[in-house]
């Protein structure tokens, strides 16, 4: 592992060195370290770049780390990671990607993740994206996540992209069976000329399935954001999506919700709010002794916390 990877790992995964338990660290399209645990096996794919993460039935409370780091310009990384989570398992997956460029050429990480979540299994998926370095080359991260959640399964995705990523297109597709649930919390901040696209599509196929998709974002400078969510209610189910954005400077934010109910007991809701920071919020914090700039920073920090 080189020095930049170590720094990026700290930023995206909170790691300071190699973790205990199962992990796979990807550095510039190569494996920089891998370890299995008693219950979690990580295997190299043979037909394409990537790994299979296999979690045994009944695994409880383990965390598997699979961060990816790009440490220089002119890297075009494509990886396919498949997660097989067996019945009743309860695990945390810490993914995340850091892209560092110093040169003029762009670098890109394109991670295609597929989750096969077994009956009554529970996965917490933490994903943080960050860009660093002073190069003019763009830092691009385009993750795709495809989830199939079996009866009673639960996937909680917590994703954050706070700085340094010039372009991102995040595509998430999910199919849920009976009583399965998908909860997504997304936080994005863009600035300068950055662009971020979020594209969720969830099919609620089983009776009692449900999803809750919440995106909070801040768009500054001349950046552009697009939030698109599609929920299909194909059974008696509940779906909620929410896009809450703070817009600043000359930025642009679009929210495009789409709800389709194909069952009389499908309860689907979408909420979207885009607006600037309320002046009264800044004034309130100034009456507590903060400057206008400090108040603005505090409001944004809290909003994206």
């Amino acid at each position: 592992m080189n020095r930049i990877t170590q720094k990026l790992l700290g930023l995206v995964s909170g790691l300071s060195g190699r973790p205990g338990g199962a992990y796979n660290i990807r550095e510039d399209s190569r494996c920089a370290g891998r370890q299995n645990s008693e219950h979690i096996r990580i295997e190299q794919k043979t037909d394409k770049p990537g790994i299979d993460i296999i979690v045994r039935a009944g695994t409880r409370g383990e965390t598997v780390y699979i961060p990816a780091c790009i440490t220089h310009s002119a890297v075009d990384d494509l990886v396919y990671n498949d997660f097989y989570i067996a019945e009743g398992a309860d695990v945390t997956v810490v993914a995340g990607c850091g892209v560092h460029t110093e040169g003029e050429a762009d670098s890109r990480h394109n991670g295609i993740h597929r989750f096969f979540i077994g009956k009554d299994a529970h996965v917490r998926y933490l994903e943080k994206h960050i860009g660093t370095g002073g190069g003019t080359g763009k830092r691009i991260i385009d993750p795709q996540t495809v989830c199939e959640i079996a009866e009673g399964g639960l996937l909680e995705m917590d994703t954050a992209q706070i700085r340094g990523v010039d372009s991102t297109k995040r595509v998430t597709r999910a199919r849920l069976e009976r009583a399965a649930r998908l909860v997504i919390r997304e936080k994005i901040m863009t600035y300068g000329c950055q662009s971020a696209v979020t594209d969720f599509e969830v099919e609620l196929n089983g009776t009692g399935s449900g999803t809750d998709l919440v995106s909070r974002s801040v768009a500054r400078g001349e950046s552009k954001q697009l939030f698109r969510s599609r929920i299909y209610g194909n059974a008696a189910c509940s779906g909620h999506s929410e896009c809450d954005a703070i817009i600043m400077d000359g930025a642009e934010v679009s929210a495009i919700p789409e709800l389709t109910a194909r069952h009389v007991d499908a309860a689907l809701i979408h909420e979207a709010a885009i607006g600037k920071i309320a002046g009264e919020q800044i004034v309130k914090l100034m009456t507590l002794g903060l400057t206008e700039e400090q108040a603005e920073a505090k409001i944004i920090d809290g909003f994206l916390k």
Partner: protein
Amino acid sequence: MIVLELKGISFQTPERREILNEVGLRLEKGKFIVVTGPNGGGKTTLAKLISGIEKPSGGRIVFDGRDITDMDITQRARLGICYAFQQPVRFKGLTVRDILELAAGRFLREEELCGYLMEVGLCAQDYMGREIDASLSGGEIKRIEIATALAREAKLTIFDEPEAGIDLWSFNSLIGVFQALRKKGKSVMVISHQERILAIADEIVVLADGKVVRHGPKAEVFPTLLGEQKQSFCPRQEERI
């Protein structure tokens, strides 16, 4: 010793409607002053002018011996002016702990948080992690606003209609909050119509039509007040009675 002096303070809206007309007021340090008067008389504007949210169109404001007329909100807050809003502001993402720590200007230990929240009848365990967003009721957020004012430990605290939107139980504890501030010798200005708050004042200021129409010890002002306020709200009320 005078903590706050308003010298000929006037305020007009951008449409040139006169809200305050050469208001003069001297508040003594450590006193509990209640400002009352009819709605639209300029009370909230007065509080906003003292805290710097609005700028006067004429006159000077002196706080703790310094002319603060040209200072901004932040500078005044740092000098020790605290303003508890009539309608508290909601923040997505900021928690009760966050706002109390911002008010105190430092990290607060759990027992300190507990102390401020207990004073307004809230349990710290239940509330310190709560976001100050739409999930809080009007009464809850009002109590948090008052706790925030307490955490400031300011030289002068202005409460703008603290009783608005809170239930009877909270109202009783609110009176307790004010009595505790008096005991500590804090200078407090409360904008209120509430008889029970007026009853614990050292001094009462009556503001009507943008002017101070009366200012004196509670014993002098309070007995005359009820009739005047009725008249201000509805001039024909007494005729009907």
